[in-house]
Structure formats: structure tokens, C-alpha cells
């Protein structure tokens, strides 16, 4: 745990810094709110409808796909750590990872064939 203490210290300093610079401008800056200043900016004309418009579902799919592939890619990291030491023990780890990578590639090819990323 001792090596985490410096990070806790850095977290404290960063919190102070972030809140500090945001507070200082609250104190130093002038305060003159007028309705035009507080309105939503839409190129100077009156905003048309609400801002939280429906957006394309592809964005949601990208988030889901990222979740899947990031979990898959995370399995590479522990493998990569021990791979160099395991080289003398034959190709078992290499085959295991190549098979796993093949499965991942099948998933990737599937989503690309489905044209999920086509945003237009």
C-alpha cells in the first residue's frame, strides 16, 4: 500500500488546484447576468426545440462494442506479461493466444460485415 500514498497526495494537490482555479475566477470575475447571456447559444437565433435531441443508435452500439472488445483486449495484458518467460517451455501459450485471437477476429469481422459503423 505504501506506493499508493504518493498518488493520494497527488490527488489531494490536484483537487486543491482544480477547485482553486475555478473558485478564483468566481471571486475575481464581474457578475452581470443578463437573459441574453444566460440563454443557449445557437448561432444567435432563438433555440429551436430542446437540446437533448434523439441521436443515431450507432453511438450506443459503438459503446457496447467497445465494452466487449476492451474486455477481450484486457486478456492480452496478463498473457503478454508472462509470454517472454514462457518461451522456453514450448509453444503452448503461443497457440492458446493465436486461437483466442482468431475468435476475437471472427467477432470483429462479424461486426464489420454487419456495417454497424456506417453512420450515414
Amino acid at each position, binding site marked *: 500500500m505504501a506506493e499508493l500514498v*504518493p498518488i493520494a497526495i497527488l490527488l489531494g494537490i490536484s483537487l486543491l488546484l482544480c477547485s482553486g482555479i475555478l473558485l478564483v475566477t468566481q471571486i475575481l470575475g464581474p457578475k452581470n447576468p443578463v437573459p441574453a447571456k444566460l440563454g*443557449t*447559444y445557437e448561432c444567435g437565433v432563438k433555440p429551436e426545440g430542446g437540446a437533448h435531441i434523439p*441521436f443515431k443508435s450507432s453511438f450506443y452500439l*459503438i459503446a457496447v462494442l467497445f465494452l466487449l*472488445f*476492451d474486455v477481450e483486449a484486457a486478456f492480452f495484458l496478463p498473457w*503478454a*506479461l508472462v509470454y517472454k*518467460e514462457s518461451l522456453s517451455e514450448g509453444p503452448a501459450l503461443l497457440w492458446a493466444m493465436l486461437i483466442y485471437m482468431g475468435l476475437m477476429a471472427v467477432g470483429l469481422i462479424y461486426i464489420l460485415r454487419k456495417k454497424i459503423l456506417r453512420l450515414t
Partner: protein
Amino acid sequence: MNALDVAISALKAIVILVAVIQVVPVMIYVERKVAALIQDRPGPNRVGPLGLLQPVADAVKFLFKEDPIPLNTNRLLYTLAPFLSLLPACLVIAALPIADKAVLFGKEITIQIADLDVSLIYVLAIGSLGVYGILFGGWASNNKFSLIGALRSASQMVSYELPLGLATVGAVMVYGTYSLREMVVLQDGTLGGFLPNWGIFYQPLGFLIFLISSFAETNRLPFDLPETEAELVAGFHTEYGSMKFATFFMAEYMNLSTMAGMMTVLFFGGWHLPWITDQQVLDWVGSQNLLCLIQVVTYISKVAVFLFLYVLIRWTLPRFRFDQLLHLAWTNLIPLGLINVAVSAVLMYLMRGPA
């Protein structure tokens, strides 16, 4: 851990944090001067000699600006977003090994805020938290431009996280460790007698993937789709002003210097001078502290080269279209990253030493 250790850690944290924050004004000046050079105009030249005080003037102006919170916004998330954007950018620098160690007051002090065993994973994990700030800011602003910018930014950052991770997998395979400090130590000396023993010569494709992904992760041109001035006004920070806007700006430049630092550490030998081992330098200068100073200067020069590359590319390349950007990630970079890992694995197996 006694009080002296805690004091030293605090001092290191403050010094390194302030140093990284100093990158922001320097980069603003360099960026504006290079832009001016490329567009054939003088650039900032009124404030101070050669306009050198321009970033200071900007910072002071930001501090003295009114900071209104627009109506119709989600006040909590709107105020929280700049915070959430800058905080990860400050935290992530803890893992970067800047130099080996100095000896002060009879104590060995490593020039790194926290020497974690898993510093590579720490950088990837904390670095990706910045997307929350952008997403919250864009959604809470209650502005169509902001919302679209935030959505683009989020999907771009998560898409390019995968190739970034896969590129680091290659580096982990070569070094056999997660610790950035140990990686740098392993890059000492020469490779085959005529090349520096740097990661780029083991993982050239990995470096290329890392470089391209780092442009997208930091929302820089040619991948600055979240804030395309021409179509989205200013993207996710359209509704922000005063210091809140400056906070997003600072976070962007600090992330940039972190990425440059990561490339230096993973692929360009960190604090090592090319072709010269640490031991040789130590023999010449004869003092651990002088060696440490040389290492710090080397590290900073390498980071500066990468930062300058970012600036040059920003002002020379046009912008991608958003679907092209996603296609580049999913159809090119991720398969390339997988191939890089597979080919490296096979080559490492074929070229393994005798057991």
C-alpha cells in the same frame, strides 16, 4: 513510510505537477507561433518581447472574466465537468518515470511520483477517465452543438482506446513488465551495435498505431471531430467560458504531454541518451545527481520533439470525416494491432534464445 518520505513525495508531486502545467502556456505560445509561421503571418508579437508574455496575458484574462452558468443547464454536471476533465489529466502523470534517481541528504529519490508495479495499466485506466468530463460537459450544457460534440468525442475516444491498448500489449510482450520504470531501464545500451536499444526497433508497427491513436485520444487534428470549429462552433465546450473553458484547454494540453511522455517511455528509451549507457555517462560526469539532471533534460527534449510533431501535424493536415475516423479505428487500426501482437508473438517464439 515516515514523515520524511511523505514530505519528499509531496514535494515531488508539487514540482512535477507544476512542471507539467507549465507545458500548457509554452505549448499555447509555440502553437500560435507555428500556426503563424505556416500561415505566413507574424503571430503574437505585442505582449512582451516576441510576444512571449501572451500566454500569461491569456491566463490573467481568463481569471478576470465573468463565469456565468447558462439557464437550462444541469448546474451540478455543468460545474463538475471541467473538474472531471482536469483531474485525470493531473493524476495520470504520477506514473511517468522522468529520470532514474537523485541522491539528496543521503536518501535516494526516484524522479517519479509513484513507482507502481502496474504503472502502464494505471496510465491507461486513469487516462481514459477524461471522457467523463467531456461527456458530462456536453450533455449538461443543453446545447445541440455540445451534445453532438460530446457524443462524437466519447465514441472516438472509446474506439481509439482499443488500438492504444493493443499497441501497448506489444511493448509489454517485449519488456515482460508493466512497470514503466523497468521498461526504461531495459532500454539502456545499443541493439546490434549500431542502433539505440529502444522499443521502436522492436515494435515499429506498435509505435505507429500508438502514435495515430494518441492523436485521436487527445482530440487533436486530424481527429479533432469533437470540436470542429466549422460545423460544431466549439463542440462540447460551446457553452463554457472563463476559467471553466481554460480548464478543458489545460486538460487537453496536459493529456498531450502525457501521451508524448508515454511514447518516449515505451518506444524511445525514456531518459536514455542514444548509444550511450547510463554507466558511461556516470563515469564521465562522476556524480549521480548530474547524471539525473542529464536524464531529466534528455526526457524533456524527447517529449518536446513529440509535442512539436503534434503542433506541426495540426497545422498541416486537413480534418477527417467522422465515419472515416471510426472506420480507421475499427477496420484498420484494431486488426493491425491484433496482427502486430500475433506477428510479434510468433517472431519472439522463433527467435527465442536457448533455454
